[in-house]
């Protein structure tokens, strides 16, 4: 093995093609296999009802994963997405509740002010992360870890550790359980964001600069790319996406919650890495991340429907992740 490793110097086109396509093939294969297995093992796994469930359940992780992807392409990572979700949830809920209480006849007003507040928060958190990483040159791991601790503290301060009630039902009716042409609205939102992310990364100059920054920061700078600016914007985007996920989650739960999203940071990073996003930066595909996220959620859902016990689920999930990586390795 070691021989093979050293044999291949910087991969030549063929290898590239193969390894990349290995990446590209591995996931879908895994995906299909998983589908088949679960379909066989759990009767109502393929019921539209359950599939809509999976779709809806994936939304929140997926949106966060998109943000994580953008940051990871620049060679960073964001451990604060979890607390970011909690904070946006709590704050937006509070704003909605107060505004709604103020004038109960104008739920829309409450709704919008809540949404705006939430997004503002998310962007702000991202901004701080970005500045810490670029201006202070703190390693993203520590910067975002520290931020997540700070943000979570703030969340608890604000919420006092209890859920925030009293948000207009409208919120839940639309963004929680609403449907358009039978499609759950959260899923539609997610789909829209996926398209947006794809377009940005693949078709725009900013996207190109993201990849360049992550691929080789100094080189990009020497080529006239304003890498710091790009990085900051990336973190802000990630923050915004986390916030959106938080808002949708709030709509779904009907309350502002401090205790949500604890597992999001690691899960979202996992969703990216499993999709071939490099922690070293410079590489990562939107659609693969979608697939990776779906796989993760699908596995959990499938195992639940197979009535696999909690203990076994830990083992199974871990094993499947590793297996997927082993297949997709390059």
């Amino acid at each position, binding site marked *: 093995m070691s021989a093979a490793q050293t044999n291949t110097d*910087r991969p030549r*086109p063929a290898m590239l093609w193969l390894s990349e396509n290995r990446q590209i093939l591995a996931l879908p294969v895994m995906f299909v296999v998983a589908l088949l297995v679960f379909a066989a093992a759990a009767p109502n796994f393929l019921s539209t009802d359950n599939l809509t469930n999976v779709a809806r359940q994936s939304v929140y992780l997926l949106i966060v994963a998109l943000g994580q992807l953008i940051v990871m392409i620049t060679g960073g990572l964001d451990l604060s997405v979890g607390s970011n979700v909690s904070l946006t949830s709590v704050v937006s809920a509070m704003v909605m509740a107060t505004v709604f209480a103020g004038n109960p006849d104008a739920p829309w007003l409450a709704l919008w002010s809540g949404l705006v507040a939430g997004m503002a928060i998310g962007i702000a958190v991202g901004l701080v992360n970005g500045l810490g990483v670029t201006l202070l040159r703190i390693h993203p791991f520590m910067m975002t870890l520290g931020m997540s601790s700070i943000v979570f503290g703030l969340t608890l301060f604000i919420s006092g550790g209890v859920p925030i009630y009293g948000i207009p039902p409208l919120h839940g009716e639309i963004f929680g359980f609403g449907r358009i042409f039978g499609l759950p609205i959260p899923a539609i939102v997610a789909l829209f964001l996926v398209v947006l992310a794809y377009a940005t990364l693949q078709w725009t*100059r900013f996207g*190109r600069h993201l990849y*360049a920054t992550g691929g080789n920061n100094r080189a990009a700078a020497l080529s006239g790319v304003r890498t710091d600016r790009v990085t900051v914007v990336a973190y802000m985007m990630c923050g915004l996406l986390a916030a959106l996920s938080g808002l949708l989650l709030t709509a779904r739960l009907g309350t502002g919650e401090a205790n949500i999203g604890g597992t999001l940071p690691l899960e979202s990073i996992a969703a990216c890495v499993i999709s071939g996003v490099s922690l070293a930066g410079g590489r990562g595909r939107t659609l693969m991340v979608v697939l990776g996220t779906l796989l993760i959620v699908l596995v959990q859902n499938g195992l639940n429907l197979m009535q696999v016990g909690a203990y076994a689920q830990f083992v199974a999930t871990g094993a499947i992740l590793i297996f997927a990586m082993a297949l997709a390795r390059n």
Partner: protein
Amino acid sequence: MMSHAVARTQQAAPSAAVPTLSTVGLTKRYGQHAALDSVSLDFLPGEVHVLFGENGAGKSTLISMIAGANTPTEGRVLMDGREVALGSVSAARAHGVRAVFQEFSLIPWMTVAENITLGEEPLAGPAPLQRVVGFLSKSGATAEARRLIDDLGFELDPRATVASLTRGKQQMVEICKAMRVRPRVLILDEPTASLSEHDARALFRLIRRLQDQGTAIIYVTHRMHEIPLIGNRLSVLRDGRFIATVPADTHEDRLIELMTGRNMEKVYPRPRADLGDVRLELRGVSLDHKPGVPDIEGIDLAVRAGEIVGIAGLVGCGKSNLAQACFGLRRIVSGEVLVDGVPLVPRHPADAIGRGLWYLPSDRKNDGLALELTAHENMILSGLRFGASRGEMLKPRREARQLSQVSRMVEFDGRRLGEPVARFSGGNQQKILLAKSLVQDVKVYVFDEPTVGVDIGACLAIYRCLADLSARGAAILLVSSNLPELMGLTHRMLVMSGGDIVAEFDRADYDEHRILEQFF
């Protein structure tokens, strides 16, 4: 050739003209240490101004500040007599200053086209839209890249991934990047370091064209034979200080004297006459096919104890791959490599080293050095298994002794052993890489471009090292795109083209033109 160069320097641009760019007391300090010490230079339109100096003299530092990649501690930069702020690379570009940096600025996972257009991507759609969202125009980029590549007459595929190119080809990409728009000031920091003669000439032709269009060109090189070919004036830096500006056709020995502050004439050590028996042998070696690599098939080659065999050829002719094959880094589908007559089938480089082989890679950054580690740690690494350590326990004193010794051999400042490699100038990093291979004595050395970017003084020292090694009975395979060096050092020279050995010359009948002919 020479005459032509002289002719050029005759009609050197009139120094009366307003300098396109000039530096005034430009200084860069790292702590106490001045990498560049108040240097004032004028760069005239249509002039090729050569910067010359030892490794670490401050050439790249000077350049990086002109190109906006580095901010001066003191001093100003004037363009057309007016002071300008070159705070960032893009700012410098806006003033028409473009540079090919010594350390490549390429994104490995992007294609050649994407790299060439990076930072100034051609956009699609109408102008107003472009201002809102910059949608990339893929076709635009590819076309642009093609134009430049053809312009320079390089062999490059715009769609190839940069990571998959050899240093030489990556160098070409770098050059294309700088030629994007016709620059007012073009900076070339050792552009030919890993180019072969032929490709270098393509570059020279282009430089002349720009020159005639009035571009001011700043050119850094350690290859002395290039200087008269291309330069008009030449400025020497030493210890970060400005020494003198002289016409480019000044005699080599004089230049070396200016550079080093002592006179030593440039002589290659005589290769030793008596040769031992065959140490390294390739019998009908064929490598597994790799796209982009010309197939290497049925190569026969033997290097005897005490012999230095050179391999010359164009960029991409397969010389590095052949070198790698000798060390077992490429899978061999047929034929065999023998060391002292015993077949070598290494599963890991450690096996090859164990069998008395050593390979010096051409790609310093990726294959050669750990930039974060100190020079010391890098140099001693392989030595540890050759008695630099007592079993598992290290022997610091012994290490120190050994390293100060090799440092002297490659003219590396032993007092800087404790610094991370990343802080050294390009040439000094190359010296560290070389020192690595001299820490232990082995039977067979395979050197791929060992003197890239190393200054003449140090080169001579390195040449002496190689001579020593061969004198001590080592067999040396020397892959180089520096023809004079090959002609000076080697007993025999093999010319590769398209993956085959197309010609073999004995030292007796070395002749630049006849050798070059074989390149195609």
